[in-house]
């Protein structure tokens, strides 16, 4: 049985080799090897592969992935070509050729890379996709990711949604607000974080409601403390019309989030926070009780 699979694999490999761009194959070989400066040399091969075959999706993707500015002298043309924006362009070109395949790779794979530059290039490409007509498919994938069982997917999705939402809140914000009712805590948590990072005032009522749910009568209706705490921090990032909402929390003596609200207010610097804080200082804080012992 094992032999059978091995044979089939080998057959595919041979067929593949026949069709594949020679430079691309060489570059991939280099990456797999343990040669010195293999990535730098592979990048050269990927560039040649693209020269030979401009629409090669894989070559574009791999060039976007490996082309680091560290390989070149600063401010040289090649160095500029390795910028985050340019690497994002290569990712985007790969997507243009094979949309479905590379969209999934970008969202579930590339974003997860350890290298911040690779992550940023992926974000660049995904932003381009959202601007150039691929939004529907992109949103579908991002929703899938933010609902994933894997917390890395959820985190990456929240990051992309927050960044796209900053320039285009009208689609992202309602979508994230919907996610506040998702059954998975990790999904709600990431949606709250994204809403804070976007900073749109449109999210205030939904966040306020979520915070308020802490005192709901039925336990099932209450949001967990971590998410509510993050919602307060999100209001602090939104600022502006969120200030009265935060003040309201500081005045609610039954709330466990008063300290969080006060901290959020202190970074916003809004004058409206001063009087409620002075009032909080006047609350009676301690008493002395004399207990007469029985014996």
């Amino acid at each position, binding site marked *: 049985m094992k032999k059978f699979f091995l044979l089939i694999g080998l057959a595919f490999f041979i067929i593949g080799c026949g069709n594949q761009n020679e430079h691309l194959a060489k570059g991939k070989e280099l990456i797999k090897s343990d040669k010195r400066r293999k990535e730098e040399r592979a990048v050269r091969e990927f560039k040649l592969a693209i020269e030979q075959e401009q629409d090669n999706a894989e070559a574009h993707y791999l060039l976007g992935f490996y082309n680091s500015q560290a390989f070149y002298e600063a401010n040289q043309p090649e160095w500029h070509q390795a910028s985050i924006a340019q690497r994002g362009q290569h990712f985007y070109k790969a997507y243009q050729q094979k949309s479905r395949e590379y969209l999934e790779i970008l969202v579930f794979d590339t974003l997860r890379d350890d290298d911040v530059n690779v992550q940023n290039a992926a974000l660049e490409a995904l932003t381009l996709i959202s601007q150039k007509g691929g939004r529907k498919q992109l949103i579908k994938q991002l929703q899938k990711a933010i609902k994933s069982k894997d917390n890395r997917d959820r985190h990456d999705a929240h990051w992309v949604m927050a960044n796209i939402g900053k320039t285009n809140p009208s689609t992202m914000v309602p979508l994230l607000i919907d996610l506040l009712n998702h059954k998975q805590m990790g999904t709600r948590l990431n949606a709250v974080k994204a809403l804070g990072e976007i900073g749109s005032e449109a999210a205030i009522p939904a966040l306020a409601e979520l915070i308020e749910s802490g005192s709901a009568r039925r336990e099932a209706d209450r949001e967990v403390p971590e998410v509510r705490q993050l919602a307060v921090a999100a209001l602090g990032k939104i600022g502006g019309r969120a200030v009265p909402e935060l003040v309201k929390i500081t005045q609610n003596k039954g709330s466990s989030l*008063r300290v969080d609200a006060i901290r959020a207010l*202190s970074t916003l*610097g809004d004058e409206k926070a001063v009087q409620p*804080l002075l009032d909080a200082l006047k609350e009676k804080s301690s008493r002395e*009780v004399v207990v*007469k012992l029985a014996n």
Partner: protein
Amino acid sequence: MFSQLIFRRALTVLTLITVVLATGCDNRYYDEHMQMEVKRLDSDLDNRWSTSGVVINSITSNGPADKAQLSTGELISYIIGEYTIQNAQDYTRAVKKAMKHDSNMLLYIKGKEPLRIATRKLGDKVGLQVEGNGTVRIKQITPGTPAANSDDIQIGDVIEKIVDERKIFSLKDYKKSVNEFAKMNTSITLRTTELIGVKIASVTALGNLGDARAVDALIEILQNNRELALRKAAARSLERLVALSELNPLFQKFQAEDVNQLPADTLDVRHRESAEILGLLFVDLKANTATLEAPFGIQFRHRSASLHQKVSAGPLVELAEKYIHLDTEPEQEIRRACLSMLGTLKPVSSIEPLVKVLRDQNEIPGIRFQAGLALSLIGEPAIDALIAAFNEADTAAKDIAASALGRIGGIQTRDFLINALETTEDPAIQLTLVDAIAKIGDEPSLSALERQRDRFQEDDSAIRIFLDEVFSSMTTPAQ
């Protein structure tokens, strides 16, 4: 083999149950004296905002706790007991017990306000000797002890009682203190606290917001609040408000033109740097721009003038002068914050109290140094006092005074320092003097240092090495 497996399973389950039971018992305690059950603080509140104590879990009806109208959920953070004093032996025993827990007690003297007596570390003497039977009088006060530092204690005073306030950190503390006090008293006083996190957060936030209205409220807390953590936070917030208020000229420039960005070189360098450190301003020297940070810097420029007015008019100098001394303020963080305020406000009236701190041999070096720093910020008016301190005080004070003089500079100071360097024999002071003179760095200073170099020519001492370093850093001046 099968039965062995079952046995093993049962064993694991059993251990688990024991562990659960053990931990379950560990965080609760039924107090027979007061007839109530107390439990540990929630772990997410424990040690947060310096909250400590035990929470009342349940109260037996008609028991002592119930009759005293305690209620479940209250946080007990202090247990207070009394020791009656009938003779010298009572006194010695009471002091030993009261000081053992936290080096801190309240002394009740007939006809006087209760006095808080604190020693710096466990085992230090309070400094009183007493005599008498029935009426216990003070016989002797040992110099240099906390008792001697208090002006309110005199020989012949009648001691009524000693009160011991114990801060409770754990169930063990609670158990021990209640059992001890119950043996001697027919009643125990509990001090309960509302979780003070909200107040500490408010105090800190008010310091950040920089609003004039906060000043009085913070002063009130520093003066009258009993919670140390809250007083510390209030001192820090006042320190920040004073620092913010000093930057008023800078903010007035922005306010006058109603802009949030100005050319960096139009602003006072010192103010600009402080504003940067406080996180209010972003300076880009290349582009020559200074931009108020959003949102706080921008918001604050509208409030700056009124804060400045409040701080300059308010009784802050007097307040700070009161809390810089070890015998009025046991908490060093508060003393430090108050010294820092005086350094910012630079009142000439503070020279005398600051010198007192500088010369206080019981004070820790860091705080004494801070007093020297404040004096050097006051500048020229403080020169005479610093010179006097140098001439009269102990080595540590000499050292601090010399470096403060070096920071002030000027001809009078320079000549004094050069003369001091030429006459002193103490190597530690010599080093500080060389450093101070090098800081002044004019022609006469340099030739004085040259003379010293000749004097220590064949020496391999620290001062020789230091002098070489000073000269080598002068020949290759840093850009």
